[in-house]
């Protein structure tokens, strides 16, 4: 049996999962109470019940307690997700009765654990208060030195400082000692019994496989607490989501006449400024669409040029050869994820401020998002290649560079091309609207006409956009066929 304190990664993961689930449920409950009160009980429909400040600690702590109790059943969603189960130490299943009886003890164990944490903090807080008091001349009255400092004669102050210091050390050491014994008593156990409650009931958290090995058929999903909870979560999400987003399908019909009127105006296409420049914008639809196409092309090119080398730095199987490689891998992947999670439109806003409005801002926005998106797709592709040839080439005494060129690149080229074409399609579509936020191109024209309520010209721009996107899709389809 393993000895020493092991960090129970899966168990912590399961617990965090369950806790988050109950936090979500408690949020939903508060939301529904609020909704029920404002919409149904109170006549004032726009009055919101203010969420009380003590609501947060109550929600957090109550959801924590419920999550702990739920895990005591051994069939929580977290347990299920991390493949854990609660069994007897000898491997046989734990009866429902003893699982239920174990729950209060489990809660006490958790309370004791929290107490351990609290006691460990006592000396730190004490010293902190003392030093804070010494530097500011104020403090809490039970640490006399802090308030007496600068008021009493120096020898008296010094005496009190030393006395307080000694007191904090003694009390702190006592607290740490108690915490240590408490932790030992609460946490120690053998054969995987980690908690005091586990010791009492001879229970332990074990991987699911142990039960499956014994040939015990698991219950069907709707007969387990995780199954029922999943159903409840789906229902809650649907209901709360419906209320939050204000779904109202009736509105679709009520406002249909307005829309039909708008459509009529839109379909009266006005191609006056297709070639002749619009005086205010000093640009025509035709030149704007050319600008748009080049924006998409350049952004894709930039994306490929930078994402290709970066994708190797972001591939675990290439980089995870040492701590330095692992660091580069983490940074690269972090860069991809952060940059990708900011939408192209937001990047366009940033670059419109940085380099001022215009197509250059649009290209930069599209390019940086393309680099991150392609980089992630590419590096996942590198990670999924067959490692056999790499091993074979490395075994001939080749350098890492040579392994990449002869082993990795031939394997990834087809999917790289496919991803690039896919991204090219996205960039064409994005480049048409990026002008709305100052990125230049056809979007700028569209936005201008829309603000002027010149619907006939808006319709014309939309037709041009559809034609160009369709044509580009067709071209990329042709290229794709040639590649495959």
């Amino acid at each position: 049996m393993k000895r020493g304190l092991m960090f129970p990664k899966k168990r912590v993961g399961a617990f965090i999962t369950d806790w988050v689930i109950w936090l979500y449920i408690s949020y939903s409950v508060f939301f529904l109470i609020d909704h029920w009160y404002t919409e149904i009980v109170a006549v004032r429909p726009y009055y919101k019940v203010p969420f009380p400040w003590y609501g947060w600690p109550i929600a957090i702590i109550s959801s924590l307690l419920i999550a702990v109790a739920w895990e005591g059943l051994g069939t929580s969603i977290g347990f299920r997700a991390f493949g854990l189960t609660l069994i007897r130490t000898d491997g046989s299943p734990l009866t429902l009765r003893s699982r239920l009886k174990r729950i209060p003890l489990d809660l006490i164990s958790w309370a004791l654990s929290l107490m351990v944490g609290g006691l460990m903090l006592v000396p730190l807080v004490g010293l902190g208060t003392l030093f804070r008091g010494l530097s500011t001349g104020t403090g809490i009255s039970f640490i006399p030195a802090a308030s007496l400092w600068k008021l009493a004669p120096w020898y008296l102050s010094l005496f009190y400082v030393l006395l307080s210091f000694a007191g904090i050390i003694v009390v702190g050491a006592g607290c740490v000692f108690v915490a240590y014994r408490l932790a030992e008593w609460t946490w120690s156990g053998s054969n995987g019994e980690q908690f005091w409650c586990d010791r009492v009931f001879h229970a332990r958290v074990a991987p699911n496989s142990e039960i499956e090995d014994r040939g015990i058929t698991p219950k069907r999903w709707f007969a387990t607490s995780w199954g029922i909870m999943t159903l409840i979560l789906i229902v809650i999400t649907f209901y709360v989501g419906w209320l939050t987003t204000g779904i109202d399908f009736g509105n679709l019909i009520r406002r249909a006449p307005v829309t039909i009127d708008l459509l009529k105006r839109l379909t009266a296409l006005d191609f006056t400024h297709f070639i002749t420049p619009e005086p205010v914008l000093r640009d025509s639809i035709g030149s704007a669409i050319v600008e748009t196409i080049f924006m998409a092309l350049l952004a894709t090119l930039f994306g490929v040029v930078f994402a290709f080398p970066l994708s190797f730095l972001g591939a675990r199987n290439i980089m995870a050869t040492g701590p330095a490689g692992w660091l580069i891998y983490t940074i690269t992947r972090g860069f991809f994820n952060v940059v990708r999670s900011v939408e192209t439109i937001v990047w366009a806003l940033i670059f419109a401020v940085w380099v001022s409005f215009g197509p250059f801002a649009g290209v930069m926005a599209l390019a940086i998002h393309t680099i991150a998106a392609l980089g992630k797709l590419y590096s996942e592709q590198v990670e999924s290649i067959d490692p056999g040839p790499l091993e074979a080439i490395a075994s001939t005494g080749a350098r890492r560079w040579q392994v990449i060129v002869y082993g990795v690149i031939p394997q990834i080229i087809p999917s790289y091309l496919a991803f690039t074409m896919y991204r090219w399609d996205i960039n064409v579509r994005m480049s048409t609207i990026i002008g709305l936020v100052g990125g230049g191109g056809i979007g700028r024209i569209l936005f201008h006409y829309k603000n002027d309520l010149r619907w006939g010209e808006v319709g014309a721009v939309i037709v041009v956009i559809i034609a160009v996107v369709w044509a580009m899709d067709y071209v990329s389809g042709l290229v794709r066929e040639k590649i495959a």
Partner: protein
Amino acid sequence: MAEAQLVIEHLTKVYERGEVLALDDVSFSVKKGEFLILIGLSGSGKSTLLRCINRLIEPTSGKILLDGVDITKAKTRDLRQIRRKIGMIFQQFNLVKRSSVRTNVLAGRLGYTSMWRSLSGRFSKQDLERTEVSLDRVGLSEKMHTRADQLSGGQQQRVGIARALMQEPELLFADEPVSALDPATSNSVLQYLEQMNQEDGVTVLCALHFLSLARRYGTRIIALKDGKIVFEGLPKEIDDARFKEIYGEDAEEVEIR
């Protein structure tokens, strides 16, 4: 008696994840020109042993001496020089499937080729001639420009052998080279190994599953079980009792010809 070419002392490998003891204090030595067969169940440590020797897998402890030089202490540059001398062929052939046979075979020469030459694909004239000779030896000279994934299993393994030939190796490791092949092809592949062994004097370490093939080609057999050496001796010394010791009570020998 020839000098020992490869000496392995107390080699141990522990896989960190799951704490599996893959090799447990393995010691043996190999003389030049031997055809050494490693047998044992799947998971007994044969593959790990071969990969530890050229450090595709880092051994946990122990010494590996090749011509008196300790491989386990070699720095990256020296390790590449050592790997050059050790050809290796694999159960799944490990060819780059989308590349041509020629490129796959030339890859065996990468350890000798400077970085810029190999990145731009400009191999020396001798290397190109060597490619033709190697492919000729395994009887695949007309498949030079075929893509590797269009060859049959046996042909792919022969490309693997040609790649190893390019290294002009002193040692050849074969990790279950015929497990994915039919019996007739198995024999022909092993005959190529035997030819390398006898004509070029290459020492061969070959992991195998079939005892009949081991008896036919091996000059010596080492059997592994749970990472330990349980038998070391001549092929003919493996009788029924020993066989059961290596493969377990329930095992029965399958004959392949």
